[in-house]
């Protein structure tokens, strides 16, 4: 069967197309059900969790009155959900042990934007054992790390009587894994597990008559991991003041707001921009699932459920006036919806942004900050660059941090003053942070990760190693929230790359490698010394990413031979040497390990290297 046969077979295989004239209405209904704002039928999982109070929209006077809940919570984010992973213990042989006392469903705050995903405010107690058993019953899988964003994003924390807690988190395409591990055993079907947890919570809440009674929900833009929240389940409304204060709205105003929202006629998709970090209005289900609304303009709001953004309005002007009044004399945390001024796009130089290349090539340099001088806020974007090539500088992310780049300045300004008694000036610069401001101003802050670890020049601040560890996750979160894979063809082979390698400032896991090239000089010196760059066949990239190399720190390789530059999906590079000991097959080698392709791939490997000089 050749390729044409296959194309023909595909076309011949498909049965006659169905009549799709009625499908549009079905899709429209489904679209509305997916989003807050439709006149939804009660369905899906979230509906199963709603208490009867949530369906009392027209007569909202009993929202928190009857029956009196026997279990309540007042904070959207329980303490244990704030940062559960660092203190978590690993699973035991890939399973959650029995004997759990409580289970928490948590969200996450490092979403790459102002958005803070929240789970549930109350723990599962009676059903904790069932939650553990349900996880252990999930099918084990190898996990898939290379998928596109998925709408699942939650963490489960399981508490034990001895004070130990363990955590599960969503990985890649919707599998679950031990939150303390990176590439351990995965469990399939994170969506199905979430559904099971929701059912367990619903059953327990039905017994305890749980209600969320807190109103302190204006200090972040909260969204529930149980997205989408059904409009019919919303039961409360909280107005947010300019100072972040919160005021629960009267029942009649809440009813009017929710009635207009559930009418669904003015809800559309949209690409609103974050203008203010805090919301103007927060809607809540009776059990505390939040929807944070930001005012874009008078009578027009938008919200982000962590997967998409929606716009609501213009609403009735009289209703808007009542909301504004409830927010207080200073209104809400305006301005919102104001797009940040855009800066010209930064060109690239291979796998390095132009600004980083300028630094690494010495065309521009950092200026030292004066003692205790702070880096200004208000940057539009931030870049992370490696140092000059001569000092074996790494390669920073290709893209700037454009999601709340002020976090970079804040992180620098929060660093301690230096205490240089125990170190010398030796050590060298290791990376640079570049901040671009709307007026075209550019500040470059240098930092070292070794020795004195100074930041901003000698005498300003210290803590460069920790700063880098704090900054890299900002880029990671931005990529997770809005991935922009790097697919351009770039020239990476050069004398510099051969000398110092192209290696990312941050870690590039071998399992994340997506593509690569092989660089080498012509085998015959008579053919010149120009670099030859060849794309590494996909089979070899896959094999390298999945290989089990042999630990070997002998690290003997010369600078004149061939080398591989491999990249993950964002263009973060890592360089491996190609060596060929006498009488042996060509190997791939780092300072830590050596690996030789297996017999099945050896012909392809040899063909890939054909005509290149190996030393």
């Amino acid at each position: 069967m050749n390729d044409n046969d296959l194309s023909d077979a595909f076309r011949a295989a498909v049965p006659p197309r169905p009549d799709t004239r009625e499908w549009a209405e079905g899709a429209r209904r489904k679209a509305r059900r997916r989003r807050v704002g439709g006149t939804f039928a009660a369905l899906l999982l979230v509906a199963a969790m709603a208490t009867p109070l949530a369906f009392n929209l027209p007569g909202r006077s009993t929202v928190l009155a009857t029956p009196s809940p026997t279990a309540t919570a007042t904070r959207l984010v329980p303490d244990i959900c704030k940062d559960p992973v660092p203190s978590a213990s690993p699973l035991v042989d890939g399973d959650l042990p029995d004997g759990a006392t409580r289970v928490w469903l948590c969200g996450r705050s490092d979403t790459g934007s102002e958005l803070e995903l929240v789970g549930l405010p109350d723990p599962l107690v009676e059903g904790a054992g069932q939650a553990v058993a349900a996880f252990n019953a999930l099918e084990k899988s190898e996990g898939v790390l290379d998928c596109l964003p998925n709408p699942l994003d939650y963490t489960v924390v399981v508490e034990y009587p001895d004070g130990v807690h363990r955590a599960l988190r969503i990985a890649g395409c919707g599998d679950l894994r031990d939150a303390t591990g990176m590439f351990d055993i995965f469990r399939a079907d994170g969506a199905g597990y979430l559904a099971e947890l929701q059912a367990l919570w619903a059953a327990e809440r039905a017994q305890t008559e749980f209600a969320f009674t807190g109103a302190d929900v204006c200090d972040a833009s909260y969204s529930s991991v149980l997205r989408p929240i059904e409009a019919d389940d919303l039961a409360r409304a909280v107005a947010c003041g300019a100072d972040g204060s919160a005021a629960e709205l009267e029942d009649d105003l809440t009813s009017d707001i929710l009635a207009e929202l559930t009418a669904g006629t003015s809800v559309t998709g949209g690409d609103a921009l974050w203008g203010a970090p805090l919301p103007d209005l927060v809607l809540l289900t009776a059990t505390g699932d939040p929807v944070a609304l930001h005012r874009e303009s008078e009578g027009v709001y938008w919200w982000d459920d962590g997967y998409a953004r929606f716009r609501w309005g213009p609403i009735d002007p009289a209703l808007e006036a009542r909301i504004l009044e409830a927010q207080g004399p200073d209104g809400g945390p305006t301005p919102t919806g104001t797009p940040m001024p855009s800066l010209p796009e930064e060109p690239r130089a291979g796998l390095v942004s132009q600004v980083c290349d300028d630094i690494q090539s010495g065309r521009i340099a950092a200026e030292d900050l004066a003692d205790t001088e702070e880096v200004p806020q208000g940057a539009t974007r931030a870049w992370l660059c490696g140092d000059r090539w001569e000092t074996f500088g790494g390669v920073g992310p290709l893209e700037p941090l454009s999601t709340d780049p002020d976090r970079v300045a804040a992180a620098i300004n929060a660093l301690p003053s230096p205490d240089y008694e125990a170190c010398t000036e030796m050590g060298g610069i290791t990376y640079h942070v570049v901040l671009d401001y709307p007026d075209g101003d550019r500040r470059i802050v240098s930092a070292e990760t070794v020795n004195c670890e100074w930041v901003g020049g000698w005498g300003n601040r210290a803590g460069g190693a920790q700063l880098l560890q704090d900054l890299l996750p900002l880029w990671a979160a931005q990529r997770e929230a809005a991935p922009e894979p790097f697919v351009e063809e770039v020239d990476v082979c050069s004398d510099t790359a051969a000398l110092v390698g192209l290696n990312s400032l941050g870690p590039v896991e071998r399992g994340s490698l997506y593509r690569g090239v092989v660089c080498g000089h012509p085998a015959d010196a008579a053919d010149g010394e120009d670099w030859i760059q060849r794309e590494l066949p996909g089979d070899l990239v896959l094999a390298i990413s999945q290989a089990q190399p042999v630990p070997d720190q002998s690290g003997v390789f010369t600078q004149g031979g061939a080398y591989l530059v491999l990249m993950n999906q964002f263009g973060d590079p890592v360089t491996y040497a190609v060596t060929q000991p006498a009488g042996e097959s060509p190997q791939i080698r780092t300072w830590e390990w050596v690996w030789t392709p297996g017999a099945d791939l050896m012909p392809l490997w040899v063909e890939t290297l054909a005509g290149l000089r190996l030393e």
Partner: protein
Amino acid sequence: MDRAVEVTAGGFDRYVAARGGELWAAAWLLTGDAQHAEDLVQTALSKTYWRYDTFVNDRHFEAYVRTTMYRTFVSWWRRLQWRSEVPSDSPPDTPSPLEDPAPGADLRRALATLPRLQRTVLVLRYFEDRPTREVAELLDIPEGTVTSHVSRGLAALRRSPHLATPEDQS
């Protein structure tokens, strides 16, 4: 397949009536089941519905719908009751049974043994006739990965007993 059919703008309903069948055909090759194919198309349409008015014409919107459909299928369409898929680069050991004989059942059975990403890449390459670069962009994966999946997928199909010709078996 005629991807060059001009679809004029005429509202979401008109678009779906005109092009829903072609979307379904691709979805059928992905899912191997008429009802699941309809579910997949409906899911993609419902996810893109709110954006319809932002596109200048239906052709641009269709590109967006198709992208959504393929990504939906690849990334999180995990109804395990459909079939016992293994989310890895290796084909499952045993294909799930597909009971009802239908036109093209052999190809359907053969495709059902492939991992989702591999199946998706093959459908894009050989049903939609998209070049490697376009497949890579649509699925946000490198071209090398596309090439690898095509290579492995074709090899698996050629080995598949569901597609073996009498000469292959002799």
